[in-house]
């Protein structure tokens, strides 16, 4: 495989797929990375394929079982369970109220189980969302991508979103932003299929992406986490949810998020 990477100018489709799936050997992955540093075309292909992979994951997760179905399936996991309850019922025939109690207990257990599975699903979704935020952030970093609105002027950026978003937000005066933090531009993006405003800031020489969505959207994400060396910060302010991604130090990212939250 190493040979194919070195012998040809561009990444082979199989290697490209294996690279974004993290299935290449360390040596092969290093070769690919070296190639990507100099080849804009292949770097763009990697970004496209990474976005496609994330979008496929979301599309594939559409069909969840109903809580009822989940409870029925979970009940089936214990082969002895039905036998045991029959035996107990036979042993205590003089207490007819036992059956309803057992039924209620089983129902309660099923509900608890469904809730815990939903919780587990939420954790997984929260990871998926953090990955999506990071993908979007990396896409804005990639050379050749320009924001849909390029402006440092809040009076240009904010009106641009009118009619594009089903909600509105405020931007602080430039001097209300933390030191050496500048608005660079903005994009309209989709998170889990819902429109969101993406504001691009530079803090010193780092880029920061701030995503704004309505607070009511069903996103689940922890307030602060790190992913592949990037800080992901999330908070709510007024009717909005703010989520920020950057490789700048977490304190400065917090300062930016706080400044934005204050004016909502």
């Amino acid at each position, binding site marked *: 495989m190493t040979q194919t990477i070195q012998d040809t100018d561009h990444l082979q*489709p199989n290697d490209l797929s294996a690279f974004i799936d993290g299935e290449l050997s360390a040596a092969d992955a290093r070769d690919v990375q070296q190639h990507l540093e100099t080849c804009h075309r292949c770097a763009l*292909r990697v970004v496209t394929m990474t976005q496609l992979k994330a979008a496929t994951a979301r599309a594939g997760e559409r069909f969840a079982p109903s809580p009822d179905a989940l409870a029925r399936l979970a009940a089936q996991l214990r082969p002895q369970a039905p036998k045991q309850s029959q035996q107990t019922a036979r042993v205590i025939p003089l207490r007819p109220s036992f059956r309803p109690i057992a039924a209620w207990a089983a129902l309660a257990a099923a509900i608890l189980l469904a809730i815990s599975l939903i919780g587990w699903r939420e954790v997984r979704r929260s990871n998926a969302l953090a990955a999506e935020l990071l993908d979007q952030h990396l896409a804005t970093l990639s050379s050749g991508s320009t924001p849909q609105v390029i402006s440092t002027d809040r009076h240009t950026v904010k009106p641009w979103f009118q009619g594009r978003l089903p909600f509105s937000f405020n931007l602080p005066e430039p001097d209300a932003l933390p030191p050496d933090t500048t608005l660079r531009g903005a994009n309209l993006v989709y998170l889990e299929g819902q429109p969101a405003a993406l504001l691009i800031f530079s803090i010193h020489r780092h880029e920061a992406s701030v995503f704004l969505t309505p607070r009511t959207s069903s996103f689940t994400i922890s307030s602060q986490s790190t992913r592949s060396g990037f800080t992901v910060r999330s908070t709510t302010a007024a009717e909005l949810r703010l989520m920020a991604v950057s490789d700048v130090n977490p304190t400065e990212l917090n300062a930016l998020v706080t400044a934005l939250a204050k004016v909502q």
Partner: protein
Amino acid sequence: MVHAQTLADPVLQVEHRTRYSEAHNTMQTPTFEQLALPLLPSLYSHAFWLSRNHAEAEDLVQETISKSLRAFDSFQSGTNFKAWIFRILRNTFLTSRTGIAASRTVFLEDHLDLLETSDDSPTPEDHLIRLDNQAAVNEALDQLQPPLREVLLLCDVEEMKYKDIALVLDVPIGTVMSRLARARRALLQLLQTQLRKTL
């Protein structure tokens, strides 16, 4: 020497024993229930993608559970349980009525090699595709040929490693790799076709 001293101390001895038994407990093989419970949503979702029907998806998972419970003795602990049970799910589907009907048309492996998709990966036009348009991606995944969709779901949704996918599909790893590349190419082509229609 140090070790002997440590064990001579009665308090530390107790601690040592507690630690040992704790370690021993965690090394116990997990039960079928412990292994299968967290996978129920995944199994159901994958069964739905195979059968495209909610009632049938539940039946398929029910049958998969009872088959794998019976065969659990043959499962080697330490190997990948998810791949093992997904393989049983897949075989259950292929022998179901829908599965037999499907294999006559689209699921036949021989057919797959005849499905021609050009070999090159994303072209410059592909970057025009709005991958942030989730509805478009959903539609494209619905239209993808089932064998290509299957491998993509195992990789991108179930996040399985190639070697585990190879186990589920019962094909060599090389085939998993090329099928995935082809599936992604086909998905991009479907998205491109959609884009041309809307323009």
